């Protein structure tokens, strides 16, 4: 079962919600749609489900053109951000409803509902009404209903946004386990880079209705195809410094410059954008050729065990993601060190020209989505 979107465009009135997206989702794959609010994640999912029809382009499921087909003709399931259940049916009936409508035998329904309820830890709640349950349990019910019918395509539209973070972590782990044994295509929309990294699989980055990059999550993270992809897949967003290459040197302004190393030697002279991940900035030099930047503190966000330091000077403004708690005074002058071997280089249109090689010390820590969240410790490996 594969899903192919071929040049899909959707316009509503004069607004383009989805702009010429071509995407191939492999059978049995777990796909994350990453993008900010209004990036078109939900719109794209609705097109995949058949709830909306594309203005242009084709949608193929397993080689068959399903473009004009409604949602009932496609074997899909969907879980929404809101907890959507039928409030006047018991949890059991909620989960069983797709099976009942598909005229599955009663004993089979019993077996499958109990099986899926057990997987999602709601087997004790089957006789209850959805509105009597907690948010997490309601969303489990909705997920059970989506998973029970063995759909070819299961869509999750930010299903964990309305849950507290402890539940989210729990869910995330379970999700990976749930899909490991299935051969359906799962699509999971999220705004959080950390969630994408934690879920693994493939990631497609959407921005303003366009597909920015699609590929295995780790690859997309490490080798962004463009500045937009790098910015989307990083929280806080990757820092961008405008600079020039001239006479074998990179210079950000008249004072800060460093010689081209062999990795950057291939670049012509001219203007470029250099990207550095917030986590790669440090207060102390870690290598001899680290570049020192004199900046002033604008704001220090402290979240438990780490510090997000917003700094700047007349020409640039940066965010550094520092481990540990540091306190700074506003306008305090400090020196930040930029590891020159970890710089991304983009041309002025945002196309990636150079990706730094993998760092041995796990420098690509998964970025944190928001200040109140603890880091998913094993995010990288998955």
């Amino acid at each position: 079962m594969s899903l192919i979107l071929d040049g899909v465009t959707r316009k509503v009135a004069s607004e383009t919600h989805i702009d010429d997206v071509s995407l191939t989702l492999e059978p049995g794959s777990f796909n994350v749609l990453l993008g900010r609010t209004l990036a078109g994640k939900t719109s794209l999912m609705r097109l995949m489900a058949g709830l909306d029809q594309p203005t242009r382009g084709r949608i193929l499921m397993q080689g068959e053109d399903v473009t004009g087909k409604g949602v009932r003709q496609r074997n899909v399931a969907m879980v929404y951000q809101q907890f959507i259940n039928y409030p006047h049916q018991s949890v059991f009936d909620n989960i069983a409803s797709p099976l009942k409508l598909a005229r599955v035998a009663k004993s089979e329904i019993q077996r499958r509902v109990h099986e899926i309820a057990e997987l999602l830890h709601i087997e004790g709640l089957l006789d209850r009404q959805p509105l009597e349950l907690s948010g997490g349990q309601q969303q489990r019910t909705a997920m059970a209903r989506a998973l029970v019918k063995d759909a070819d395509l299961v869509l999750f539209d930010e299903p964990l946004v309305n849950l507290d973070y402890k539940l989210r972590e729990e869910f995330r782990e379970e999700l990976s386990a749930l899909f490991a044994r299935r051969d359906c295509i799962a699509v999971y929309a999220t705004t959080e880079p950390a969630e994408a990294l934690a879920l693994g699989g493939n990631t497609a980055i959407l921005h303003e209705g366009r597909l920015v990059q699609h590929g295995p999550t780790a690859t997309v993270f490490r080798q962004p195809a463009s500045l937009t992809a790098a910015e989307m897949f990083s929280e806080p967003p990757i820092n961008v410094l405008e600079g020039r290459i001239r006479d074998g040197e990179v210079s950000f302004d008249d004072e800060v410059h460093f010689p081209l190393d062999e990795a950057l030697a291939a670049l012509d002279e001219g203007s470029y954008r250099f990207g550095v991940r917030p986590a790669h900035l440090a207060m102390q030099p870690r290598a001899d050729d680290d570049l020192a930047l004199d900046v002033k503190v604008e704001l220090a966000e402290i979240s438990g065990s780490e510090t997000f330091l917003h700094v700047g000077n007349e020409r640039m403004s940066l965010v550094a993601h520092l481990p540990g708690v540091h306190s700074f005074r506003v306008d305090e002058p400090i020196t930040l060190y930029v590891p020159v071997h970890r710089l991304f280089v983009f041309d002025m249109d945002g196309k990636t020209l150079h990706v730094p090689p993998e760092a041995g010390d796990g420098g690509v820590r998964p970025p944190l989505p928001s200040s109140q969240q603890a880091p998913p410790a094993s995010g990288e490996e998955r």
Partner: protein
Amino acid sequence: MTDSTPSSPDQVRKRAEKEAARRRRQGRSTGRRFRRGFLMLAYIVFVLLPIYWLVNMSLQTNSEILGELTLWPQSLTLANYAKIFTDPSWYMGYVNSITYVLMNMAISMSVALPAAYAFSRYRFIGDKHLFFWLLTNMMAPPAVFLLPYFQLYYTVGLFDTHIAVALAHCLFNIPLAVWILEGFMSSVPKEIDETAFIDGYSFPRFFVQVFIPMIRSGIGVTLFFLFMFSWVELLLARTLTSTEAQPIASVMTRTSTASGIDWGTLAAAGVLTIVPGIVVVFFVRHHIAKGFALGRT
């Protein structure tokens, strides 16, 4: 004053002031109490007393009603009620009224449910204008529409049938129902509909099995209002009927007999006309409170 006599002029003055203040306070609260009582009394006399009077008269004989003033029935009688329940020309009035009210409720509901769903779920050309136009139908007094309805229904042979009144009452009841139901339907997230279609519900099945249970309160409130407006509307109902489908309110205006007006029976009929309303309110009172809170009001 049992406590010690004041010893200094200063103390005397203080005590006097205190005493004066106490009197003023007391005077004010008496005045307030009197005003409140007066308002209550006025309300009872002007609004509730007539209802008691109606019940009182319905239990009296005509001679007692026309005789001296009595505050409660001297010779209690149920003859007036007995007459209404045995005389077809009386009780058929109730049957007719209830018949066209129920017909109207059924028609209005079956039209308003899909219409409200369309207004709540779809955007189509002129939807807002249409919705507004529907509401304006409620703003004109029914008397405005009397002549065209009478002429048209008379011509097509609907005159003096229950369905004629039921249809005419749709004029204001359908907009009302659409308006109330639309609010309730819009409070149900659209994702419920989509989830149902994803699960494989057909539209009719979804509507009956999932959607209608979710807006039960709204339907209850709507039915109450449909009943109320159709039950109390007199002008259209009386004009569009003569004998076969005459509403009770119309029957009540024809009580003059050779021996004068039959006051007792008229009062009994009045009481019986209030009763269905009370019964309906009794059954839906919880729904109404809940319903108003849930829907958009």
